[in-house]
């Protein structure tokens, strides 16, 4: 995270240069999950935009203003011109703020990505809402849906104010978020997905809610390349549960197999629901993630 907090910086989450480049990016969802309200996204249905879509026979009750009089003059039959809808897409950003995310700048990276994705949504006139889940049993901290450049500072201040810590597992957090959220669009889930629960259920819930899932798994170096040896007692940062490990060095191979298996399972589950999945290292450069990795993966354009 850029620590330069001079007054010229719009947000301490990243620099103005990054901000300028992010402003030119747009989310690139696979599906067109939009809302009825008018927006920037062309709907598959007929609408009132200037984009011509098709003709159909006039039926009683149709707005006579939509009759194509040129066609009527040639064919002596009324045809109604149809236009594409331009509907609004909802961008819901869910930040896992549990204690496991506090390790090694994982939460910082999640906040940076949340700000970037939110900015992209705002500038594309989407309705952007941000949810942060800390403790089980508490309501998620959330930014109500907002839209447009005018909401940019509000978005940044909200994200900057988020605190990490807690024991909210991501599967339950999704449940809690969907209890407050309404609207179709894109759900961007920023988490390490290290949960004892089943990750299939939240993905199903998101899919059922009409949200295309953009899942970003943020792992720290200690999770990606642990250098452990000997007999150890692991303590869970969220639950404080312990686990005794003997000859940890010998188990690293199996650990990596399970980590890759989780990654592959998440990718498979997201793809099944027309979603996307990406695993990144919290130490990876932000520029590379935003402007190289996400572009190459087709997440943004």
């Amino acid at each position, binding site marked *: 995270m850029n620590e330069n907090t001079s007054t010229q910086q719009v947000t301490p989450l990243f620099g103005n240069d990054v901000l300028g480049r992010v402003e030119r990016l747009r989310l690139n969802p696979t599906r067109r999950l939009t809302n009825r309200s008018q927006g920037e996204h062309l709907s598959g249905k007929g609408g009132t935009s200037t984009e011509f879509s098709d003709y159909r026979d006039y039926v009683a009750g149709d707005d006579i203003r939509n009759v194509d009089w040129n066609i009527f003059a040639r064919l002596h039959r009324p045809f109604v011109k149809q236009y594409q809808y331009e509907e609004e897409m909802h961008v819901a950003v869910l930040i896992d703020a549990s204690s496991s995310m506090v390790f090694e700048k994982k939460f910082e990276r999640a906040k940076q990505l949340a700000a970037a994705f939110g900015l992209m949504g705002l500038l594309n006139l989407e309705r952007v809402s941000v949810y942060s889940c800390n403790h089980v049993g508490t309501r998620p901290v959330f930014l109500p849906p907002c839209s447009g450049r005018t909401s940019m500072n509000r978005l940044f201040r909200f994200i900057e104010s988020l605190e990490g810590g807690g024991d909210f597992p991501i599967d339950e957090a999704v449940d809690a978020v969907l209890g407050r959220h309404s609207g179709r669009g894109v759900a961007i889930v920023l988490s*390490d997905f*290290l949960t004892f629960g089943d990750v299939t259920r939240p993905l199903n819930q998101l899919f059922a809610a009409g949200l295309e899932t953009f899942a970003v798994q943020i792992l720290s170096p200690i999770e990606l*390349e642990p250098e452990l040896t000997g*007999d*150890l007692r692991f303590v869970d940062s969220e639950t404080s549960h312990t686990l005794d490990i003997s000859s940890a*060095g010998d188990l690293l191979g199996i650990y990596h197999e399970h980590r890759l298996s989780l990654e592959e399972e998440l990718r498979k589950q997201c793809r099944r629901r027309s979603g996307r999945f990406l695993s990144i290292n919290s130490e990876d450069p932000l520029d590379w993630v935003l402007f190289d990795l996400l572009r190459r993966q087709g997440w943004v354009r």
Partner: protein
Amino acid sequence: MNWPGFSALSSAWLFLLLLPLLLFYFLKLRRPRLEIPSLALWRQVINDNRVNSPFQKFKRNLLLLLQLLLLCLLILAAMQPFIHSGPERAEYLPVLIDCSASMAALDKPEGESRLAVAKQNVRELIENLLPDQRMSLIAFHSTVKLLTDFTNNRRVLLDALDKLEVVEVGSRLEDAMRLTQALSRTVPIESVLIFTDGNVPQQVDFELPFPLNYQKIDPAGANIGITALNARRAGADGWDVFVRVESAVSGQSAGTIELLQDGNSIGSQKVVLDQGESERLVFTVETQAASDLEVRLTPSDPDSLASDNIAYLSLPQGRPLRVYADPELASFRHALGAIKGIEMNAEDQESAGDAVYDLMISDQPEDVAREASVSLFVGFVPDDLKSLVSIESGTATVVDWERSSSLLQHVQMADVQSFDEPHKNENVTDGDIEQFGYEVLAFGRTGPLILKRRLGARLSYHLLFHTDRSTLPYRIGFPIVVANLVQIAMQHASLSEVRGVPTGVLPARFLEANQQYSVRGPAGFELDVKSGDDALVAGIAAEKAGIYEIQGGSDSNHKIGAALFDAGETSLQTSDELEFREEISVSATDSPIANDKPLWPIFAVLGFGTLLVEWWFFQRRPGGYIRP
């Protein structure tokens, strides 16, 4: 299968150390706490079947298992286990090592000697010696030497073994067997090991009281060597020198014999011998003065044994034999007068005086003390035998006599009568007489008639009857007896024949009385000897072939050349079976000795290896994972 035994079984109590090790392990097993983001993945890892496989469980406690294994190995090493060689296990083991001349033979050119092979075998025995086993090293050649008492001190045994060298003499087993038998009276000996190349007399005059393990070293290669060198006077100014060359039984050999007189070559001959053959070569040396001869054999083919390729002979200065014959003994003087080459005292010289004679013939008891190489005393009993034998009047006839003795050979004594009749006193046997150093050459009906005695370098004959009162001077055998006596004297004075000196013990020399001498010989041999009142220097061991110089006194240096001169050693003939008395025979074996094999070094090495594995296993870098 032989189960291993333990030399120090009491060390098994060290196994109790396993208990504190286990206790300390579990008490000390405090795992360092490490907070991690989530246990989710690690719990999956722990629940993995592979982690819970028996091998993985074993690996989880590998530190404890390695420490237990290390401790067990060290304790087992401390218990000094060994594998039994067989049902019987020798606690006291005498090892006889042949170090005679043939043990210096090489198996091939630039190869290793038989003694080196034997020493290597014995070294393995010593290194595998168990703490409760005692070994005694005994070296034998023509005689025997106890190198070490029974001991389990490897350093003492190995030092004694390393110092063992070949003694260039022949080999005899009897003395070694007798020494071993003496040892067996002090400690219980169950078996005796003997390492030899088999070049020992097959017949051993010994009653074997213990089992003998005859370890035969592999035979050596071809060999040729000088086995005899002597010279016989040929006329007044010359010598005929005879050299006998023999080949080993293993193959054909050839070489060149070169004769050197006082360092100058005076002749050479080539010799080619089939296996086991011998040849006598004759050289003529024209000299009246004393001179030293050296014979060198230069083999044409590879030669196993080098010590028999050189021989020495000292030719004395030519002179007549100096004889003192009592003027009263006319018969002897008459017979001596007919023999050439002698210088006899005048008839009017009634006493021998202080002159030194080569031969003295006397009937005066006081002449016994006079100095002469060979003496013949007539008509009286020596003082030391007077308590055993007395001369009485009577008629004595010869019942039997030693026909092979030098004095009486070719002499018919059957019809000789004497009017002095020697009588053995009551309860006196011939054995009693022999205990005084006398040998009976002629037996009468009541006692010995002719005695022989060798005292140091002196030889004396005693006729216990006076020839003037016997029929001997009138018999045809009398001049033959006198001629034999002269011949014996000439041989003693080295006037008619000289023989090469074999290794072993140098011949006694008359030098100066009570004088300190220094003897130097080959291979750095040095010895200080002192002559006695009789001016005799004797008992000098000559273990190597070569020139021995005796320095000291007012006289110039004396040189004695010694050579191997042993046909048995040169032939390198081996016996696969030794025959002892009572028809006991012992066969040679080539199979290695099954000695008790100590196992503690193996356990110690395994323990060290376990320590290294433990160190490596727990100090290595953890298995990393390279992110794709």
